[in-house]
């Protein structure tokens, strides 16, 4: 299958020698949440992951749970957040992260069509594994949305091969057997997931979960094409840091990744 625009964009940058950086923001966590996304783009994000909050985020640790709760208690809805994205001109390709029920409730066809309408490029659903994407991948394909699949340290060789083949946009390598959330050190499993994926595919491989500091980003990117950073940024947002301050955080990671690795 030919690469979609998101994959082409990420491949292009990767092939130019750049380590990819995808920061995350929970949609609606504050009234000015889009300004965080804009600040990320300015700081050199290669794409931006936007979480549509769900009441029961099974794969999220405390920080993103709290961000989701905050957004929901502000009264935001997936439909309203997508409306805000429409014409928002963030400055980088957007990837939506949300749980299956949000998508099923809207209807996969409707939901993916709406994503495309508001300029979203990709979709990640952490509780819809490879085996259950049937029915969703068709809807995503028809709407031109690249459905990103996740691979975990526990994923067997045969599954990994299928995930690498079916994932679109990029392949999301989960660093650790656990939820999202900051960790003191990068899990040892991180490297092996990335290495195994890269043996199977030339698609961009991005690592996520527990990547908190510029140093950890550099470490994770050593075996992969880039990183996704979420909880460390969302903790700062929850603590009240401004979009400009978050922009500086992302820039620090960007600069660490841009130092030529010897």
């Amino acid at each position: 299958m030919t690469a979609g625009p998101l994959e082409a964009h990420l491949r292009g940058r990767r092939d130019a020698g750049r380590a990819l950086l995808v920061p995350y923001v929970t949609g609606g966590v504050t009234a000015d949440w889009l300004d965080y996304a804009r600040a990320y783009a300015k700081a050199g994000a290669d794409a931006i992951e936007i979480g549509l909050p769900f009441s029961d985020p099974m794969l999220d640790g405390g920080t993103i749970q709290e961000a989701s709760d905050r957004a929901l208690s502000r009264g935001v809805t997936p439909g309203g957040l997508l409306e805000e994205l429409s014409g928002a001109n963030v400055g980088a390709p957007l990837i939506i992260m949300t749980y299956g029920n949000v998508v099923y409730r809207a209807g996969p066809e409707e939901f993916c069509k709406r994503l495309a309408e508001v300029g979203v490029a990709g979709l990640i659903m952490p509780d819809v594994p490879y085996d259950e994407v049937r029915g969703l991948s068709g809807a995503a394909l028809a709407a031109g949305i690249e459905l990103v699949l996740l691979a975990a340290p526990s994923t067997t060789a045969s599954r990994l091969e299928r995930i690498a083949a079916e994932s679109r946009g990029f392949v999301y390598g989960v660093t650790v057997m656990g939820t999202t959330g900051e960790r003191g050190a990068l899990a040892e499993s991180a490297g092996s997931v990335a290495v195994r994926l890269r043996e199977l595919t030339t698609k961009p491989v991005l690592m996520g979960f527990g990547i908190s500091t510029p140093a950890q980003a550099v470490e994770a990117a050593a075996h992969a094409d880039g990183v996704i950073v979420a909880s460390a940024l969302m903790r700062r947002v929850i603590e009240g840091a401004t979009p400009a301050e978050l922009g500086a955080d992302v820039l620090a990671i960007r600069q660490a990744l841009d130092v030529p690795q010897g």
Partner: protein
Amino acid sequence: MSLTLWNPESRSAPPRRSGMDDPGSEGRFGRFGGRFVPESLVPACEELERGFREAWADPAFRAALNQTLALYAGRPTPVTPAARLSAELGVTLLLKREDLAHTGSHKINNVIGQALLARRMGKTHLLAETGAGQHGVATATAGALLGLDVTVFMGERDMERQQLNVFRMELLGARVVGVSSGSRTLKDACNEALRNWVGAVDDAHYCIGSVLGPHPYPWMVREFQRVIGEEARGQCADLLTHGVPDVVVACVGGGSNAAGVFAGFVDTSARLVGVEPEGGAAVTFGQPGVLHGFQSYVLQDESGQILEATSISAGLDYPGVGPEHAHLADTGRASYVTMSDDEAVAAVSRLARTEGILPALESAHAVAWVLRAAGTADLPSGSTVLVNLSGRGDKDADQLARLM
């Protein structure tokens, strides 16, 4: 895109005999069920499915389970004709006495099965969620019996409401972890147990308390509860002229006691009735959705956020329902009705005074349906009806004292 993703032939075709059979390798009950878990948990679910299939086909495992249920848990439980209440209602009412099982409810059937399986699979640790604490107490009990560590996740609000059960679990050697996220109740405890399982799959078995969760849980838990229906089928054959009752009725939270008793009668002429609490009636008021790893009817708002259930009975306070019940409702093989909190409370005292049996508030929902339906077209005079009395009401005495 590889064809395996799309080819229906590649799905194992489960045998379709009675409608409550093996849901196949994908764990499908019609359009419901499945395995909606993070990729990191898929191998653990597959390992569990393999482990269960092997154990269930192994006569030695079955024998060990049956022996433990008999010598330890008090099986078989009797079927008691409710003579005085039957006379008052003009129907023949039989009670399947799960209240007499060890720890006071049917929950023990499932946890002994899962704990034996976990040990056979080399696991040393059980994780469980609990709402009212009944499943937590049962898991703590099985852990003590088999020498497995037990961690129980419980919403902080439920811990306040059910202090006695928290203490019981701790007495039995379990660790109780309060869950402060979301609504701080059962659904949040399920989320937290799943999150913890992701990080502990090598040593830990997640012992789910009802016919919920990713495949193979809804099927496996139903199989472990099937003993209720199988015993009752034989007991009804001895007690009733027609051998099977006209109606089999059970309360439905997640749906495990109902699934267990229905499984014994699904291939008979008996009508199957599931009773949901008015404030947590996923089949009656929910929409199709995905929660805690499976597709089923779920109480949710129009944008897909899960709603909290609000029943007087903590054991029925769940916003979803087991996927097989959703399917049984779709096919019409079982029907689902709701009872109010008041009707359940009234049923507790009616059964207590007429039969000397204090039912759990959960089970009282099933009794309440009989009280309402007897003498109507739903349950004409002269009918025979089997109620699965899923548990005893001692745990609810405090709550009832405050209400009455």
